[in-house]
């Protein structure tokens, strides 16, 4: 009796171990089969379809209450947002999932720095949205960025980043500079060099502990945002070292870096956030999405001190698209949701909440920022300033490695000059080496 119970116990353990291992394997299989697309039972539980939307950073859809609104309009739809904070984590993850054909969300966001790579390498992984929408809703150059050579539209435009200059009126006053936004815009109109010259004036009488601008890199990005030719020519060849646009933006940035007017901060770093809170810089190149950021980081203390003026040139910095991967199990529903989220009315709602600027010009007449935002920026007419910029932004040629090339120039080249006291030539050489490494040359 004793032996037999022991034996049966052993057998049970064996069975348990076997069950455990097969369970593990089955678990894996289930996972890769299912992806994350229909959590909550797909079409099973109560007839509700769950749509997932993968985004990075703050998209503003949730903040503007768009998901709730859509779910109220469509009781059979449930929406879940999967947010990845950092773009440099989000994009590689999305790329691998797209190619595996599994694990993607029903809607995936695409940043403008990655959109060319998506267009050129992942077009067959996205649903062609061109037939689904009226393309004339969007700015032409916005559509062009997400369109393949044979005319397939892989993403619908969300926000764009038309440029302005945000400045601290109180600091300008202390430094004895002009504080009126229209007169300021007039002073630096047409040339970022004039903006830098004003910075030199500022530094002569700068309030103690403050600098004119947050970083040389931000001036570089702002100036480059208005150039047609960046790192690639219109045929897709890498021309960054010969590009007139890059040269112009680089020279302006070098002027900033070598004349002690920069707070030498790195954008989106913790100390940069602190710089907003402590008011250590007087101006910042201000794409529309920066409006929300400044309010959050500068806080109560900055209220009414900030103002917005038109930038020297019309420029774009940032912005995104949303596309529907062909791997989505609910393509039809996902396309409907994507269309709705990017429709002019919804873009206007996101602007009202988050000040992310719409890529649909028909909404511009009805744009209203939140009253609080308006008050925060000294009642500046931000809608008009950004609309004027948005309507004159040139179509830029983007390339597959725009993002890493840009990072090499700002975070290696410019940073070496700005923070390590290297000469502009040394900085350029360092950036050159880095870009060669990026391009595998």
């Amino acid at each position, binding site marked *: 009796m004793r032996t037999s119970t022991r034996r049966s116990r052993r057998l049970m353990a064996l069975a348990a171990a076997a069950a455990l291992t097969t369970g*593990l394997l089955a678990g894996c299989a289930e996972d890769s089969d299912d992806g994350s697309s229909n959590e909550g039972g797909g079409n099973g539980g109560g007839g509700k379809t769950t749509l997932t939307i993968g985004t990075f950073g703050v998209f503003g859809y949730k903040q503007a209450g768009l998901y709730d609104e859509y779910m109220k309009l469509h009781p059979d739809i449930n929406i879940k947002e999967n947010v990845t904070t950092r773009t440099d984590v989000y994009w*590689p993850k999305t*790329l691998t999932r797209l190619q595996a054909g599994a694990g993607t969300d029903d809607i995936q966001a695409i940043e403008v720095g990655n959109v060319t790579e998506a267009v050129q390498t992942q077009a067959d992984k996205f649903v062609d949205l061109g037939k689904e929408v009226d393309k004339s809703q969007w700015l032409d150059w916005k559509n062009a960025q997400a369109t393949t050579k044979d005319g397939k539209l892989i993403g619908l435009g969300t926000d764009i980043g038309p440029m302005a200059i945000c400045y601290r009126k109180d600091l300008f006053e202390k430094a004895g500079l002009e504080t009126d936004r229209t007169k300021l815009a007039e002073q630096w109109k047409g040339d970022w060099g004039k903006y830098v010259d004003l910075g030199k004036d500022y530094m002569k009488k700068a309030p103690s502990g403050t600098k004119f601008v947050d970083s040389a890199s931000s001036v570089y990005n702002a100036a480059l945002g208005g150039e047609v030719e960046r790192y690639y020519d219109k045929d897709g060849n890498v021309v960054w070292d010969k590009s007139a646009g890059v040269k112009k933006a680089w020279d302006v940035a070098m002027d900033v870096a070598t004349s002690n007017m920069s707070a030498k901060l790195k954008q989106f770093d*913790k*100390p940069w956030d602190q710089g907003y809170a402590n008011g250590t810089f007087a101006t910042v190149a201000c794409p529309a999405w920066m409006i929300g950021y400044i309010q959050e980081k500068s806080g109560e203390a900055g209220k009414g001190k900030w103002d917005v003026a038109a930038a020297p040139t019309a420029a774009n910095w940032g912005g995104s698209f949303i596309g529907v991967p062909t791997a989505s199990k609910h393509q039809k529903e996902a396309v409907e949701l994507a269309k709705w989220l990017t429709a002019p009315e919804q873009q206007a709602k996101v602007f009202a909440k988050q000040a992310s600027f719409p890529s649909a010009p028909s909404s511009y007449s009805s744009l209203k920022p939140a009253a609080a935002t308006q008050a925060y920026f000294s009642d500046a007419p931000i809608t008009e300033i950004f609309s004027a910029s948005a309507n004159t932004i040139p179509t830029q040629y983007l390339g597959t490695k725009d993002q890493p090339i840009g990072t090499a120039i700002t975070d290696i080249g410019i940073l070496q000059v700005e923070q390590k006291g290297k000469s502009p030539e040394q900085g350029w050489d360092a950036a050159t080496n880095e870009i060669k490494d990026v391009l595998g040359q």
Partner: protein
Amino acid sequence: MSSSKQALAHPASSADAAPGDKPGAAGRANGRGTPPPGSSSWRSRLYRWDMKASPYAFISPFFIVFGAFSLIPLLYTAWYSLHNVQLANLDGQTWAGLDNYENLLSSDFFWNALWNTFTIGVISTVPQLLMAIGLAHLLNYKLRGSTVWRVVMLTPYATSVAAATLVFVLLYSWDGGMINWLLDFVGIDPVNWRESDWGSQFAVSSIVIWRWTGYNALIYLAAMQAIPVDLYESAAIDGANRWQQFIHVTIPQLRPTILFTVVVSTIGATQLFGEPLLFGGVSGSKGGSEHQYQTLGLYMYDQGWIIGNLGKASAIAWSMFLILLIVAVIQLLISRRLRKSQ
């Protein structure tokens, strides 16, 4: 079937049945007489099979998981490292032979990363282990509330890398950071901790030291408490003071433990990744504007996931693996020497 029936029919004779009498396993098993007769022949076979196989079944989950998540990726990475693979085009890989490795050997960035990994490893591991021994020695005294001290020692280790590093980033911030503020207090010029060459390496090392010193101290403490008290007593009788006891009794007795911690810390230092990545903030994978604190781990991440050159990143991963193998061999040789000398 028939043999078991017959066995049931002649229970008495089965005990002394000759091997030749009834061919087959059942007959032989009965011949030995251990398990009960009859249907037990099948059972005993099962029993022996069970004895042999079930240990393998019990340990199999680990090996299955190990195979799926370690071995196969390891081999696949080796395969990738011989190809030109882009992140945006995983299926379009082309054979590259040893190009990726040659590319690495001729790349300044690789040698820079290797050197940084070494220097950061040294300036984080050496002070860390020395401090740990000192702390363990102090904790080994009779102390009031010793458990409290030990728990406190372990808290940094329990903190997440991300949380710890973010706090250190603020401390080391060059403009308005607490450390520069303290330096200013004693009249030293502020240091740009992130961009200076040695400053940044020191800052990264300090995060590692802060997190791991307590952990190592507890390992040393455990080893110290296993040292027989009579060794100290006889040393004391011979007139050795505390310091001499520490040098001549504690340290020699700790030798295997020290070797263990050195090996573990070396492996940790070779794989150093989270601290420098987060210390760098945005575009942290570059390890500073001159790559002054870009470790091998960061270089691999930058190549693979930022630049998207997975073939080269795989080659870096395998180089790291080979370096760790060399470290393991050196450790083996040293420990063998140590054992012989004892």
